[in-house]
């Protein structure tokens, strides 16, 4: 069964450093998403991406965040200058459509720790 994959599984970085989180969505999916889950809290929507551009973003997704699909398979989330409060689990997801009823399939997550 096709899966969403994410690398790395864990990332430790110093405050102020840039990090890039990588995701490979399911191959025939067209819509891609990033979510984050701060320890013990809700899963929060960050951004959705379609046709090489952001389709929606939350208030969390400020100027320090960016997303990119650099080739036909990878989907990346970049945090330009990490802050302590960026420490969280980051999930990538993909879906074939974006009708609202379409199921989003999630990757295993990247646990980011900012020191």
């Amino acid at each position, binding site marked *: 069964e096709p899966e*969403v994959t*994410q690398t790395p*599984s864990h990332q430790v970085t110093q405050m102020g450093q840039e990090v890039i989180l990588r995701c490979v969505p399911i191959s025939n999916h067209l819509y891609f998403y990033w*979510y984050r889950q701060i320890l013990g*809290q*809700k*899963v*929060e*929507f960050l951004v*959705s991406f379609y046709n090489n551009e952001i389709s*929606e973003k*939350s208030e969390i997704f400020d100027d320090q965040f960016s997303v990119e699909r650099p080739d036909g398979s990878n989907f990346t989330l970049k945090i330009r200058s990490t802050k302590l409060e960026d420490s969280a689990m980051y*999930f990538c*997801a993909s879906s074939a459509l974006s009708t*609202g*009823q379409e*199921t*989003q*399939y*999630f*990757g*295993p*997550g990247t646990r980011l720790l900012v020191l």
Partner: protein
Amino acid sequence: AQSVAQPEDQVNVAEGNPLTVKCTYSVSGNPYLFWYVQYPNRGLQFLLKYITGDNLVKGSYGFEAEFNKSQTSFHLKKPSALVSDSALYFCAVRGQNRDDKIIFGKGTRLHILP
């Protein structure tokens, strides 16, 4: 505004007993409702969803959920729990408006006791 609530942080059930994980929601209009499960060190796995039609939805691993519009609930159920069902369960809702985003609950940890 959309919201979803999972009132229980943890649910303990003896193996073989029926289980229920509660979820209530608030959206304007009709909802799309989802349940996901998260096993340790894994991502969220889709279990089931309600879009329209029968209020009782059957999903993976023997789980089902009942949509109750009057109570704005979508509780997850299973007739006979397995130890392997122990995991973190997330309810999610999305409204049917174009700009609505999927909103997740905070999760309920289900612990099945052998």
